[in-house]
C-alpha cells in the first residue's frame, strides 16, 4: 500500500510536466520530512554510538545525550541562518551536528582528540565552532544566558541583522541568570530567542516539583516578552514555532519559546533513571520522536520500510566511519598545555608543571623564570 501511494505521488515523468502548486507543496513537504528524518536518525545513531563509546571508556567526564530531543533539535536548527548565533548548554551534540559542524570533529571532541571541535579542551559539554557560529556548549546551568544576551547586545550595537538563539533546559528557568537575562533583553529590545527545552526533568526533579509556574513559557509575561509553547516531538511544529520566534527576534524583540519533548534516558549516560515509573518508561517508547516520524513517513507514503532500513544502514556505516576517525585522531601533545593561557601574551605568565619548582635555584629546574 505504501509503495502504491508513493508511486502515485511521484510519477517518473513528473519533472517533464508542468507542476501544479499543490504537487509542489506536497513534494516540498515530503522532502522536508525526509530531511528531518535523516538528520534525526543521524543524531539518534550518533548519540547511541557516543553512549557505547562512554561505556567503553573512550569518552570521559559527563556525557549528556539528545535522545528523545531529536525533533526539537532539527526543528530549531532548521530556521537559523548561517550567520545567526547559537548558545546552548551541555546537552548539545545534536545541535552541533544539526548546525552543520563535521560530526567527525564532534566525535573527536568526545574522545578528547586534537581534531575535536574544541581541540580536546572542551569535551562533551563544551562544543564550540566559530565558523558555524555555535558559540558553546556550556556546562554551568544558566551560564550561557547572560553570554547569549550579550551577543545579542553586540549585534544590536552594530545594527546587524543576525539573531541569537539560546537554548536551555527546563531547570534553568529557576536560575537567577534566566530572569536577569530576560529582563535585560526585553528592556533593550535585543534580537534573541530564548528556547526552553522542557523534557520535564531537571536531572531527577520534575518541573512540577521545581517550578511554581510549571507552564514555563508563561514566565515571559513577567518581562512583557512574547512567548509560546510547542510540541517538541514534531519537527514541523517546532520549525513553525521557531520561525515565528526568529522573525520576532529579527524585528528586534526577544522571544521565549518553550519546546516540550522527552528525555529517553537518564540525565547523563551513567544515570539509570530509577526515579521513573514503568508506566513513564512505556509512554516514552510510545512517544519516541524518531519512531513517530518513521511511522508518519510510511503512513503518508513518503517512504517505505525498506527505504528507511536502507537509510538506517547508511547512517550506521557513516557513524562507524566517524568513530574510526575519532579513535585515530591523536591526543593533544602535552607540550601544548599552555597554548591558551592568554590571547594577549604577558610576562610572568605561569607555565609551571605540577612537580616543577618556581625558581632555578631549587633542585628541579624552574618553570616561571
Amino acid at each position, binding site marked *: 500500500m505504501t509503495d502504491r501511494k508513493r508511486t502515485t505521488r511521484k510519477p517518473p515523468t513528473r519533472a517533464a510536466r508542468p507542476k501544479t502548486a499543490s504537487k509542489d507543496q506536497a513534494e516540498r513537504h515530503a522532502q522536508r520530512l525526509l530531511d528531518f528524518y535523516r538528520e534525526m536518525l543521524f543524531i539518534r545513531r550518533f548519540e547511541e554510538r557516543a553512549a557505547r563509546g562512554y561505556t567503553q571508556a573512550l569518552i570521559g567526564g559527563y556525557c549528556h545525550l539528545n535522545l528523545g530531543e531529536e525533533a526539537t533539535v532539527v526543528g530549531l536548527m532548521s530556521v537559523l541562518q548561517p550567520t545567526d548565533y547559537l548558545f546552548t548548554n551541555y546537552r548539545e551534540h545534536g545541535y552541533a551536528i544539526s548546525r552543520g559542524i563535521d560530526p567527525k570533529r564532534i566525535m573527536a571532541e568526545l574522545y578528547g582528540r586534537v581534531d575535536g571541535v574544541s581541540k580536546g579542551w572542551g569535551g562533551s559539554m563544551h562544543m564550540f565552532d566559530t565558523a558555524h557560529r555555535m558559540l558553546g556548549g556550556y556546562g554551568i546551568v544558566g551560564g550561557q544566558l547572560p553570554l547569549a544576551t550579550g551577543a545579542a547586545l553586540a549585534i544590536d550595537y552594530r545594527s546587524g541583522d543576525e539573531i541569537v538563539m539560546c537554548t536551555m533546559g527546563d531547570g534553568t528557568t529557576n536560575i537567577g541568570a534566566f530572569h536577569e537575562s530576560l529582563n535585560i533583553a526585553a528592556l533593550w529590545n535585543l534580537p534573541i530567542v530564548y528556547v526552553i527545552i522542557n523534557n520535564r526533568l531537571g536531572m531527577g526533579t520534575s518541573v512540577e516539583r521545581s517550578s511554581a509556574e510549571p507552564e514555563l513559557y508563561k514566565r515571559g509575561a513577567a518581562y512583557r516578552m512574547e512567548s509560546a509553547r510547542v510540541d517538541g516531538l514534531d519537527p514541523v511544529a517546532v520549525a513553525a514555532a521557531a520561525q515565528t520566534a526568529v522573525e520576532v527576534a529579527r524585528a528586534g524583540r526577544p522571544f521565549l519559546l518553550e519546546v516540550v519533548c522527552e528525555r529517553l534516558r537518564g540525565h547523563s549516560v551513567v544515570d539509570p533513571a530509577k526515579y521513573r515509573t514503568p508506566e513513564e518508561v512505556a509512554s516514552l517508547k510510545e512517544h519516541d520522536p524518531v519512531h513517530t516520524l518513521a511511522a508518519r513517513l510510511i503512513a503518508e507514503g513518503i517512504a517505505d520500510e525498506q527505504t528507511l532500513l536502507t537509510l538506517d544502514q547508511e547512517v550506521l556505516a557513516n557513524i562507524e566511519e566517524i568513530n574510526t576517525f575519532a579513535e585515530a585522531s591523536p591526543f593533544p601533545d602535552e607540550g601544548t598545555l599552555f597554548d591558551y593561557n592568554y*590571547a594577549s601574551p604577558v610576562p610572568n605568565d605561569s607555565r609551571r608543571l605540577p612537580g616543577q619548582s618556581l625558581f632555578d635555584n631549587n633542585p628541579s629546574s624552574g618553570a616561571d623564570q
Partner: protein
Amino acid sequence: MTLMSYRQALHDTLRSEMLRDENVFLIGEEIGVFEGSYKITAGLLEEFGEKRVRDTPIAEEGFTGAAIGAAMLGLRPVVEIMTINFSLLAIDQIVNHAAKIYGMFGGQAKVPMVIRTPGGGGQQLGATHSQNIELYYAFVPGLKVVAPSTPADAKALLIAAIRDDDPVIFLENLALYNTKGEVPDHDTPAVIGQAAVTREGHHLTLIGYSRMAHVAKKIADQLADHEGLDIEVIDLRSLRPLDRQTIVESVKKTHAAVILEDDWLTYGIGAEVAASISDGAFDYLDAPVRRVAMAEVPMPYSKSLESAALPSENDVIQAIYQTLDAIGHRRTKTGPHD
C-alpha cells in the same frame, strides 16, 4: 605631565579610549544618568550617548555576563561593578565563563573586556561593603588582575587593560580616588604582569599593591627623611600574573621583606608573595618574612573597631622595625651579612 587625581586619570582614560575605538563601551549600574557612584564616568553619557554608556538594572550576573558575550563578538566592554563586594553576584560569569572561554574552546573565542571595581575599607561601610577580595580573581588562571596605586598607573594600566584581548579585573580603591600625582600626557599602555620598584633601597623590601603600595611608598619616604633608613618599595601592580622575579631579585639584595595588604592575612595575596620569596630567595633571608594585613573579622561598623581591624601606618612602621631588629638579632648570632 599633568597633575591630576586618580579619579580624573580614570575618567580621562575611559574617554580617550572611547574616542579612539568605537568598540569600547561602558556598562554598569548608575554609570550614566547618575554619573557613577564615584563619578568616574561623569559627563560620558552626555558625550557618547546611551549606546556607549549603558545603565543597567541591578543585575551583576546578567550585565557582567552580557559584557562577556558582547566581548566574544569583538566589542570591548568596560564593566563597572560598583564595589568589589557586588562582584560576588557575578562570580559565576567571571570565573566560570570569562576566565574559561578562551582556553575551554581551544582558543577560538577571545574575551577582550575590563571589569573595573573598587575595593577598600575605612569608610564605615560595615562588613559587606568593605572587603578586599581581589584574591578570588587573582587565584583564577585565564583572568588578569591589575591594581594600580597611582594616577599614572591608573591611566597606563587602564589603557593596557582595554586594549588587551583577555578579561582584566581592574582593581581600584575608594581611598585612592582623590589622591593626586603626575600623569604622562601620552597614551602608552603599561605592561600587564610587571611589578614596579617605586623606591630603591637596601635595608629591606616593602611590598604592597593598590592602596598599600601608596602607603608603603609614603612610609619608606618618611623613614628615609627622618630615620635615615633606605627601604626598597615594590608596587606589585599586577596580581595575576604575579611578577615573582622582581620580588625575589629585590629580597636577594635587601635580605628581608615586609608585605602590606588590605585583605585578610590567611591565604591572602601576601601569603603567595611570602611563599614566592621562600621559593626564590630562601638562602638570602636574614629575617622571617613579615605580613601586615587586616584582622580576621567581618569589618565592624563602629569607627573604633574599624580602625583596629585595618592596617595602620603605625602597624607598618612597627613591622619594619621588628624586622630590622630580627636582622640585627641574627647578625649578632651569625656574624654580619655583607
